[in-house]
């Protein structure tokens, strides 16, 4: 079980969180004309990197904030966590 540092609550066990997928995906702006390909990329295509991955976790059984977690997908090492609105490096 991972031990995730929530920037709002401190270090908490994984079972307080829900996984939220790739944090680098950016939703296209509303009302913007975009190609099918762009939309398809946003809805369906995700990289599945081995190594560093910036991902979203939702502290559902805690502060209910979405946070960004930089984690190594092969070792589970967590390098850094960010608040939702914090800029990532």
């Amino acid at each position: 079980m991972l031990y995730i540092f929530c920037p709002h609550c401190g270090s908490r066990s994984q079972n307080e969180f829900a996984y939220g997928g790739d944090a680098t995906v950016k939703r296209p702006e509303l009302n913007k004309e975009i190609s099918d390909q762009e939309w398809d990329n946003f809805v369906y295509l995700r990289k599945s990197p081995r190594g560093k991955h910036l991902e979203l976790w939702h502290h559902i059984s805690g502060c209910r904030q979405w946070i960004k977690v930089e984690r190594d997908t092969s070792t589970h090492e967590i390098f850094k966590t960010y608040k939702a609105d914090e800029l990532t490096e």
Partner: protein
Amino acid sequence: MSQDFRLDNIGMVNRNKKISFTFNGKKYFGYEGDTIASALIANGVHLVGRSFKYHRPRGFFGVGVDEPYAILQLERNNERDPNIRATEQEIFEGLEVKSVNCWPSVNFDIGAINNFLKMFFPAGFYYKTFMWPPSFWYKIYEPFIRMAAGFGEASIKHDKERYEHKYEYCDLLITGSGPSGLASAYAAAKNGARVILAEDKPRYGGSLLTSDVNIGNQTGVEWSEKIITELKSMSNVIVKNRSQVFGYYDHNMLVMSERIGDHLPKTQKYLPKQRLWYIRAKEVLISSGSIERPLVFGNNDTPGVMLSSAAKEYMKVYGVLVGKKPLIFTNNDSGYETAIEFKKNGVNPLILDTRKEPSSDIISEAKNLGIEIKFSHVVVAAKGYKKVKSADIAKISDNKKDLLNIENIECDCICVSGFWTPSIHLASQSGNKSEFNEKIDAFIPKKSKQKENTIGSANGKFTLEETINEAFNKGYEVSNNITENNNKVSIPTVVEKKSTEHDKFWCVPLPKGKSYKRFLDFQNDVAVTDIELALREGFRSIEHVKRYTTLGMATDQGKTSNLNGLQLVSDIENKVVPQVGHTTFRPPYTPVSIGAIVGREVGKHSKPTRKSPMHDWHEKNNAVFVDAGVWLRPRYYKQGNETLFEASKREAKNVRKNVGVCDVTTLGKIDVKGPDAAEFLNRVYTNAWLKLPVGKARYGVMLREDGIVMDDGTTTRISENHYHMTTTTAQAANVLSHLEYYLQLVWPELNVNVVSTTEQWAGAAIAGPNSRALLMKLFPNTDVSNEALPFMGYKEADLFGIPAKIYRISFSGELAYEVNVESDYGNFMWEKIIEVGKEFQIQPYGTEALSTLRIEMGHVAGSELDGRTIPHDASLEGLVSKKKDFIGKRSLGRSAFIKPDREKIVGVVPLDKTTSIPEGSYIVKDPKAKLPNPKLGHVSASCWSVEYDNPFSLAIIKDGKNMIGQKLFAMSPLKNKTIPVEIVSSHYVDPEGKRVRA
């Protein structure tokens, strides 16, 4: 009663307390503190089971977790417990155990014929034998394999025992209370660290219990007792025995199973049987010790062949002799310690040492005691079937290839020592890549991966002095890093006997013309020939060899077999062991009971049970409940001998005719507040929200980004910047997360807050033509006329002094209202509605009637919005705005979503107007078409229409709009039914929606 193999003046069992137990129906006795193994050996019993594959007789090989095959089935309080290691399970009064893997009995086992058919059971025989013909799998092969598999039989009864989970945090977790564990725990605890010390066995001390050493002028046993007593008295230390740390997981989370009641006749009051500890440790010291390695020779699985360290522990801890004519077969000095112990207890052992001319303190001591030693000698094969009776021994040539002068000598046990294997399982599980140490011919942990360090013999340190020094220093160092304290305790002086180098020789060659089975893995019946065969057949990777031969698998995880297996592969391949590498060590280190893993999360406790504030009323009024997610909802209210069908029909009819009331507390409710709330809703829902006036509700549909409907419900504008959103019961939690996602990550510029208010409000739906009349009596001071409170209107009102909210919304399709009050007043509201509603013939209705009402109205619910449908499919396309953008809109243009024959919801009526259509049925054109019959769609929900008194179903079928009026078939292969049907509009009742607006 005397026991033939019990020693009088040695051992730690309580001689004042005799305990009787039965093994295979026969009564035996032992003493408090005995294990099943020690008590049976004291009684001269060595045959306890049959092996997995060949059904060869099995005895005891080890003395604790190292035991590969003395696995029994236990009965306790009328419960069966399989997979019990006889060497770990302590006896208690009335204990009943029996052998497994044998039929009809352990003495006469039919399966033993496998032993004579062994040429048909080579490595990988499963893959070779059970291949053809494929039709044999289901009826012949699978039942056969299932019968042969496993160690014992699990109970199918509900386990009444209590198991618990516990979460704990500490600075330092130490796994094992041998010399290194005790020393490091003491040093760390004295330096202020919060320490957990876990010991798998009942007794603390590890190797100190059996070794002849001196620490700080005390014997090993005295020293360990002193340290444990002091540790137990310290408030910063938790000391646990009978506790196995079996898994090392991510981020320094370790899991330990504590056997609290397993050694007692009955679990103690207020205590669980077992407790599973989830321990998050800042640092871990692995002091799990080492396990003696077997030597490999012919028939080395015969009962009576066992590890020499086990034989010594049976003597020193349990006061039990494993034999009276012991043969010690060793390649190192450890065997001598066992021989000396035998000698001290009046038994004359014979030592066969594979080494030519070794010399050390211990060997000299053995010589001085007059113990007979044969150097350059080996055991060729054990003789005897159910117990060792003699052994063929031989002199071995200097190149260790040839056997000279084979002779048979009498003996009743063979104690083997092939040197020591550090238990690196936990370190390996943490991700530590181990390295091969040539000096000890074994793997030891390399660089720490997580926050772990391995100390003592688990780290390949086999002298006590080294171990104690390392452990004291490590304990101080690690605690100093955490606490920053500098309290260093002094390290005691250690006196021990010096030993010399071990011999790398481990496997005795076969004499000419003999084909003895030489076992590597005792639990899985893997012999030298099996590995040889696997390599001949081309398996190279050790991971493949493992799976093909089953070496090192199952509950044993290769504790005694791994290294010998690797050694053999490297010998055959002309490699060295590190080139071959080792297989992955996986948790759990020892078997963990399913009960402990599950903990308290069984039955009703496996998920929370949510009840509405009106639950007690429902119960008192004969409600039959149904699980709706985690909620319990009344399915129907039973009157007399009514069936579900009759009751739900009565309730639904009464709604259509008079008035009914339904508990809708379970609906998800979310408060949406803030100046940008309207804009946010406008983006979340498919329809327009900017112009909804205060005091009005609107039905909305929300999509996922892929265009699929996520949820539906009504949202009401309570005030300028305050909306009350409802969701379906099932999706309430997901919708909240969904909203939070968009507010926090996608559109943080929107000034909106959302919070769940599901539990703050109790809700009652009042539906039926009499509902307004009832409302007028419930709220005499509020104008609830059609003009003042129109369809989709909202009003705050006073319910006999309680503030209430009235929403004029309808799921039943009738004139209907939902009344909400604060949860604490829920029951008050409900009772008032029932009381006042009497004159209007009110009846409560459950989810079954609710379903009937919505189905015949063509209102969609979870069975239509099933994660595959877009608004069009559910005939909700009218709610999809063409003007504005919203979540998921861009996906609705996907080609599959706009094709002309896209699925759409329809109604289905059986032509005979009597046969109900099973939910899940296929709609097909031709029931006799060749399989697979092309299906048009499926039936999503079925009911008995109370309006027309015939069955009615909803279905989602291809080109549904143009299918109306067609005669098709509903096929249910599951129920073996084919029903001729007519496709009709999904709005079966009141298609114009006049009633809700009445």
